[in-house]
């Protein structure tokens, strides 16, 4: 109630002030009410704005930590959050604010090609000096730092690294007479066949946005091409028009034809199908450790009844798909030193633990074994393995969408695996030219 009154009064005063400001601005051309957040160089004040996409369950934890930072440093930091998968609206808003000259000082962003445009457009700052100052190179996982390094520029500081594994229902496996998760790709195919024979859809994946069905394809590519070639394909160093890629597309189609995927998988919303393995509608899915809290436990089930395995690639090293998230600093921030200090504070082990982050790339911040046993198991085992970049971050959005379109055509039988490999080569070649 107190809160209500406060905000009402604030609204009234703000409304009045805004109207006044609007009137003034109409006369003078520009307003100068940019205090409160960075307006550009020279603001210099001890105010910061952090823009993120924390959802309702975590944003208050973050605000509490930021407050602690403020008390220690005498700063005033505003936390604005725009929850959501963010793949769409969050970057839209971030971009508009940056272009409008009123961007946040620090923002959270995904790595790879989602974060890259901000560095390329010089909207975010080169943080190399701060890496040295705060010793981030030794505190954070090198693979994760790689995911926040763009064309040699350390444009962001990673704090989350998520790996994609196979999450399965023990009941479904035992119903089909499967005693243990597969150790080789051949075994995985056998598992699928047994599941189908037992009337269970094996893998619940949907492709409405390209992902998450791409997680299957990138895995099949890792199986057939191996780590070295896979990486070279993604950078365009090797041609896609080759047998390994054709094999991957052939296997991909096989998954659909053998009904190892849900019917009409390309059109399904991953948000809807990902939990099918929890609901008993499918045996497993390919996803990250968040599914333990947000799928299994949020569905009122016990972690004991489920399991996780690294998708077997028959390759050395045994890699899985992964992606990072981190923070960037506005190139026009009025107070970059303080912004970097805020980031350093946010990647401290204690902060990570207070924020209940279960997939941090910070050494010493592992998930809690008692509450999240499967996440812990993943972090201790496969989580320590190297990963290849999840493919919607490995390629720029345009090329990624073309990649997904090729995958969709293959699944619908409109393009043969051989043609798909050729088309992919064209896509990657066109990217090189850009």
């Amino acid at each position: 109630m107190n809160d209500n009154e406060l905000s009402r009064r604030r609204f009234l005063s703000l409304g009045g002030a805004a109207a006044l400001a609007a009137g003034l601005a109409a006369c003078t051309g520009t307003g100068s009410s940019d205090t409160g957040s960075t307006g550009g160089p020279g603001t210099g004040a001890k105010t910061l704005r952090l823009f993120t996409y924390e959802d309702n369950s975590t944003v208050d934890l973050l605000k509490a930590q930021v407050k602690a930072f403020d008390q220690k440093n005498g700063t005033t930091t505003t936390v604005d959050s725009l929850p959501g998968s963010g793949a769409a609206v969050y970057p839209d808003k971030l971009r508009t604010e940056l272009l409008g000259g009123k961007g946040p000082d620090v923002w959270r962003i995904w790595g790879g090609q989602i974060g890259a445009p901000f560095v390329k457009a010089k909207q975010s700052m080169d943080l190399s000096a701060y890496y040295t100052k705060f010793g981030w190179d030794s505190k954070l996982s090198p693979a994760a730092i790689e995911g926040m390094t763009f064309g040699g520029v350390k444009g962001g500081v990673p704090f989350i690294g998520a790996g994609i594994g196979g999450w399965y229902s023990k009941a479904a496996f035992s119903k089909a007479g499967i005693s243990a998760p597969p150790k080789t790709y051949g075994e995985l195919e056998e598992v699928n066949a047994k599941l189908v024979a037992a009337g269970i859809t094996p893998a619940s994946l949907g492709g409405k946005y390209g992902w998450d069905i791409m997680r299957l394809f990138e895995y099949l590519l890792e199986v057939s091409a191996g780590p070295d070639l896979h990486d070279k394909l993604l950078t365009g160093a090797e041609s896609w028009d080759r047998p390994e890629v054709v094999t991957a597309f052939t296997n991909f189609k096989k998954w659909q034809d053998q009904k190892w995927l849900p019917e009409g998988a390309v059109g399904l919303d991953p948000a809807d199908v990902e939990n099918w393995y929890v609901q008993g509608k499918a045996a497993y899915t390919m996803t990250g450790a968040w599914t333990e809290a947000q799928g299994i436990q949020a569905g009122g089930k016990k972690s004991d009844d489920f399991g996780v395995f690294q998708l077997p690639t028959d390759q050395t090293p045994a890699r899985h798909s992964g992606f990072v998230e981190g923070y960037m600093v506005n190139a026009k921030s009025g107070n970059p030193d303080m912004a970097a200090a805020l980031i350093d504070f946010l990647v401290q082990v204690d902060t990570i633990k207070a924020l209940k982050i279960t997939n941090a790339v910070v050494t010493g911040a592992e998930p809690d074994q008692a509450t999240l046993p499967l996440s812990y198991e993943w972090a201790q085992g496969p989580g320590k393995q190297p990963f290849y970049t999840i493919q919607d971050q490995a390629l720029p959005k345009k090329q990624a969408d073309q990649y997904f379109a090729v995958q969709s055509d293959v699944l619908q039988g409109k393009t043969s695996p051989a043609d798909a490999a050729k088309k992919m080569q064209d896509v990657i070649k066109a990217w090189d030219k850009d």
Partner: protein
Amino acid sequence: MTTLLVPDTAVSAEQPVAKKRRGGIGATVVMTLVALLWISPLVLLVITAVRPLADFISHGPLSWPGTFTLDNFTDAWNIGNFATTYRNSLILLILKVPLGVFVSAMLAYALAKLRIRFGAAIMYTVFLGLTIPIYITIVPVFVMARSAGVTDSLIGLIGPYLAFGIPFEVLVLQSFIRQIPDEIIEAARIDGAGAWRIFLTVVLPLSAPALVTVFILDAVATWNEFLFALILLNSDAHKTIPVGLLNFQGQFSNNNTGLAAGILIAVVPILVAYTFLQRWIVGGLTAGASKG
């Protein structure tokens, strides 16, 4: 002139007796069936809103709930920050919609009856506003709002909201106002009424069904507007309902049951308002006003 006096149609329609009423029952049955089919997809929304989230996650949207609960509504009220977003959306609606409809009616009147010069050019310009994809205007609008110091403020939304509502409202209203016979306006003028008085006492009352229609459509559009609100507002204290609904999303999973409850909380008032206002479209008000 009599063609414009609009008595209550409901009354006049029921006068021709028995024969018509029978046809009415047949049509009623058919319409009810069609309406049930039409509304049926919404059953999914309502069911989702009254089941626990765990039940939804563990059984999927298309299953019958294991248990029912109304807790989603209280949770949604808090998560969606409705105490604040309701107030903000309502303030916007009250400030923006009547003003928008009024200035649009003025322009529509100028186009339809005042023989404004360059009328065709104005009409094309107005069409421009309908056709332009809103997305390409957001950066300039943001820059304008920033230089006026009205980002993160409801005031900053009113300008763009008015501007993007005007084209549609003007086109609809001018079409209706055009139908008002010139003789009525001429008669008022002979009585000594100026343009302003004619507008207020003749044109507006005679356009009441169109005004109410436009008012409803504009109110719905304002209530649901997402993009400008998303781009211009930051702090929780200033967010509107559609932006607040984002709080039910997470990076990897959505609070679907809370969202469904939140959507019902968000749309019910506008549906109630619609039910109330639609009576004014069809008769009643018009009849009385046009006599005056």
